């Protein structure tokens, strides 16, 4: 085992919140380590199309922040790494153990030329396109990934060695092994983000069985420039959809799936996608089936009104079940609350606006000493006056790790986390 690396702050998670918190702290002169479990930093936001309510492109906002983070002299980033354990020895003394997974690619040498990808004979589902298309076993995660270097998915690798043969930079290295790194920090910021609700838990919506039922994240991918298809298309048969339904509260506000709370973003992202769809498919009808439209933030209600003016149809009523008809169209059954009558509507595509859930394993990193709330989000001990404070002093929470929130709220919450961390660290200096 190698020597211990030292930093001021450990930021767990390299999404928008983690980056914002890290940048704020680094700008104040603190040395920050970001640990990201994925192959690239950027979190969920980097995969989004445009963001509400301003409709500016998500990548245009994330990528500069990503590269600013990556280039900042006070910030170190470990991607494809996980924090396996954090032990608080005393105030200002946290010992963490990191696991750095092997990419089987030498990060510094890879130029991201993608020749290996061309050579690779294996195709598996591309998790960054939410399974809509395939990717190779050796792959650059996505075009605006950071670092933009390849990695080998060893579980799916056929060990043919073709990538190694074609790599012009000689950077494929199958001898890499999992690495353990010990670090010592004064403070920790948790920015582990969220996971999406798995709609197979609601069998009556037919997700996974009816291919034209997609998640909102799959639709989001269809709307970005680096999209999986050449246009917005039905995954079942490649047809251009012209009548798309949005099923809100899919996995939110639902006791039966164990998530009674509102995910806070689904209404708005669905409205946004509806607007974008009307741009991408000018002939298409978009219907949003909702319970309550929660357009509560700055400029949100105006954005909702705008979508109505554009011709998005809003129907109050939760979708009860979805059935597939012969040609792949979908029959959605719901009670139209405004008329009080049960109705069936045909759509050629249905988008499940899936909710936001707490990520797993956050507390176990801290030997279960970190308190979680009843929904498994990180508990905010003093939510009113110190919203980033957890039950452990010196450990702060940023972004959706503490509950569902949208991007502006996540950024503000990260700002709060960095301020509270900075105040804590400053206290440490004063003591010495």
């Amino acid at each position, binding site marked *: 085992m190698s020597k211990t690396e030292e930093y001021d702050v450990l930021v767990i998670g390299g999404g928008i919140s983690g980056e914002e918190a890290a940048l704020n702290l680094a700008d104040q002169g603190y040395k920050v380590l970001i640990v990201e479990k994925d192959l690239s930093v950027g979190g969920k936001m980097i995969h989004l199309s445009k963001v509400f309510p301003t409709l500016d492109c998500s990548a245009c906002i994330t990528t500069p922040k990503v590269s600013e983070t990556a280039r900042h002299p006070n910030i170190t980033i470990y991607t494809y790494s996980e924090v396996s354990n954090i032990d608080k020895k005393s105030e200002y003394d946290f010992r963490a153990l990191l696991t750095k997974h092997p990419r089987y690619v030498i990060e510094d040498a890879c130029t991201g030329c993608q020749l290996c990808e061309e050579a690779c004979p294996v195709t598996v589902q591309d998790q960054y396109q939410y399974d809509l298309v395939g990717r190779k076993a050796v792959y650059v995660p996505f075009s605006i990934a950071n670092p933009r270097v390849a990695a080998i998915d060893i579980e799916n690798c056929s060990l043919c060695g073709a990538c190694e043969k074609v790599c012009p930079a000689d950077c494929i290295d199958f001898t890499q092994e999992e690495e353990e790194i010990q670090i010592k920090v004064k403070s920790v910021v948790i920015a582990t983000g969220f996971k999406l609700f798995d709609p197979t838990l609601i069998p009556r919506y037919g997700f996974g069985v009816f291919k034209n039922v997609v998640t909102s994240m799959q639709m989001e991918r269809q709307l970005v420039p680096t999209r999986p298809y050449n246009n917005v298309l039905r995954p079942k048969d490649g047809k251009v959809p012209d009548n798309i339904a949005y099923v809100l*509260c899919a996995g939110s*506000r639902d*006791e039966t799936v164990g998530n009674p709370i509102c995910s806070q973003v689904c209404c708005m992202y669905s409205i946004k996608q509806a607007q974008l769809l009307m741009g991408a498919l000018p002939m298409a009808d978009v219907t949003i089936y909702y319970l309550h439209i929660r357009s509560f933030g700055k400029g949100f209600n105006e954005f909702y009104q705008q979508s109505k003016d554009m011709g998005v149809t809003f129907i109050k*009523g939760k979708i*009860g079940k979805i059935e597939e008809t012969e040609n792949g169209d979908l029959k959605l059954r719901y*009670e139209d*609350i405004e008329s*009080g009558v*049960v109705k069936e509507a045909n759509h050629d595509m249905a988008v499940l606006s899936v909710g936001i859930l707490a990520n797993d394993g956050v507390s176990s990193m801290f030997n279960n000493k970190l308190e979680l709330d009843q929904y498994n989000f990180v508990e905010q001990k003093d939510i009113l006056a110190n919203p980033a404070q957890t039950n452990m002093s010196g450990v702060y929470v940023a972004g959706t790790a503490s509950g569902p929130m949208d991007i502006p709220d996540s950024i503000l919450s990260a700002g709060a986390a960095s301020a509270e961390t900075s105040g804590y660290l400053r206290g440490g200096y004063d003591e010495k």
Partner: protein
Amino acid sequence: MAKINPDFAKEIFKYGNGDFNACYNCGNCTAVCSLTDEHNSFPRKMVRASVLGLDEKITTSLDPWLCYYCGDCATTCPREANPGELMMSLRRWLTAKYDWTGLSGLLQKSLLFSLFAFIITAIGVIYYSVYQNFNVETIMHHGHLFEMLSIASVFTFIILPNLFRMWYFVIIKPGIKVKFITYFKEFQDLLIHMFTQKRTLGCDDSQTRWFMHLILVFGYLALLFTTVVLDWFGTENLFIILLGYIESVVIFIITFIFVAGRIQKNKEVNKFSQPSDWFFVIWLFLLGFTAFIVRVFIDLDLIENNIWMYLFHLIVLVQWALIIVPFGKWTHFLYRSFAMYFDKIKQVV
């Protein structure tokens, strides 16, 4: 213009489990229900009416009778408001509402009152047998007479007026104009539903439930016929005796399964049993079981010395005929069938 009455919900709570206030009107229950269509969209509307206390809406509605409690709405309700159980409660409430005597409501709301009624009838029977010096023949003879008399009087004085009230609530009060002839035209529907309960088949996964229910209904009616008309306890006809045995066995086996189900709470429909549910199945079970034993005793010539067996049967029978049939869950059998019939009439109009 309707006035909201928040106290109404509290009244409904007395008839069953009361989670329905949690409803946030998403309509999921109506949408998942396989019995709903454009004409009959429930249960959300009934939930809403219960929350707001719009009792007019409920009394004039047939929706509670159209529900067969498959439980889909309850298992998928995002607020766990259990609309299916509310529909059950409303059926109980409606039974009370239709009943002109008011006894039905008292029996259903108060377990104490029910127990009191059962005990009084039991004491009555025992008092009567003491009066008759435990003379088997007389008691059995009077028992048979009682069967016939009670059927006639309960039907005439309780059930018929109550059905009439139901008709008044659902057809006359809402001002539905029905041609006289329609009542005849659609009468076959009443019979079909009454004897087959075919609508249950619309519920998912309830083929067995429907089949058992069907057998039970036929078993019960047949046993009724066999004992009352064919005088099962008195006959020497081997065929009739055998028939009675089969019928009573069918009844007590199926009801035994039902009771077991209620104890295990394995299905949504069984989760929140009320005393009236227990009384119904247990008494039906006892009815079949004691009838069976009584006939066995007769065949083995034991009844003379074991008059208590017949008395036990008679107590069950009297309680059944005077409490459960006119005021208890038994009435569902009729109200449901009539509800289908009235619904058909409404749709025709």
